[in-house]
């Protein structure tokens, strides 16, 4: 059965601040590093699971107004925080799971990024952290 899922009103929080109204794209990926365990006598590479190295990227409009994007992010550079993403604003459930990355690290924050006559848009990336999924 074909299914089309498109995002219109996902929930995005960074350090418990709801940034849904400033966010235009978000991507949280679970990454499990692969370790090569191929040995003599094998004709194909084989791998085993290593450390988790999760990532979360998001595209945000950058605003300097009180308690908005810049105020949310400026003190997080070089620190760890918690990020949550959910596909819709409906209640958390098995069909609308809440994805959480705890202790994710923000390395870089563009403090000014834009062109003449355009709204400032920034891309940020959180790396590492522990991934959990909640369905209730």
């Amino acid at each position, binding site marked *: 059965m074909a299914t089309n899922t498109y995002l219109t009103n996902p929930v995005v929080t960074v*350090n*418990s*601040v*709801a*940034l849904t109204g400033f966010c235009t794209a978000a991507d949280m990926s679970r990454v499990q590093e692969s370790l090569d365990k191929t040995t003599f006598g094998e004709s194909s590479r084989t791998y085993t699971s290593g450390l988790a190295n999760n990532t979360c990227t998001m595209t945000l409009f950058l605003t300097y107004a*009180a*308690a908005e994007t810049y*105020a*949310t992010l*400026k*003190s*997080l550079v070089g*620190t*760890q*925080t*918690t990020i949550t993403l959910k596909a819709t604003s409906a209640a958390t459930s098995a069909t609308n799971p809440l994805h959480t990355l*705890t*202790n994710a690290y923000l390395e870089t924050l563009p403090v000014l990024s834009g062109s003449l006559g355009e709204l400032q848009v920034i891309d940020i990336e959180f790396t590492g*952290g522990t991934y959990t999924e909640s369905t209730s």
Partner: protein
Amino acid sequence: MKYTVVSDLVGTPGEEYVPAEGINVEALLAGGFIKADKDNKKDPEE
């Protein structure tokens, strides 16, 4: 230390803010999203 919500982006303003695991409270304070409640109660033995 107790905290109170200031911005509606983190909760209902005026309500107590209880940080979840991994939340950087200092960043929320610096950004003006929450405020720390001053505990003016004196030690009863004083």
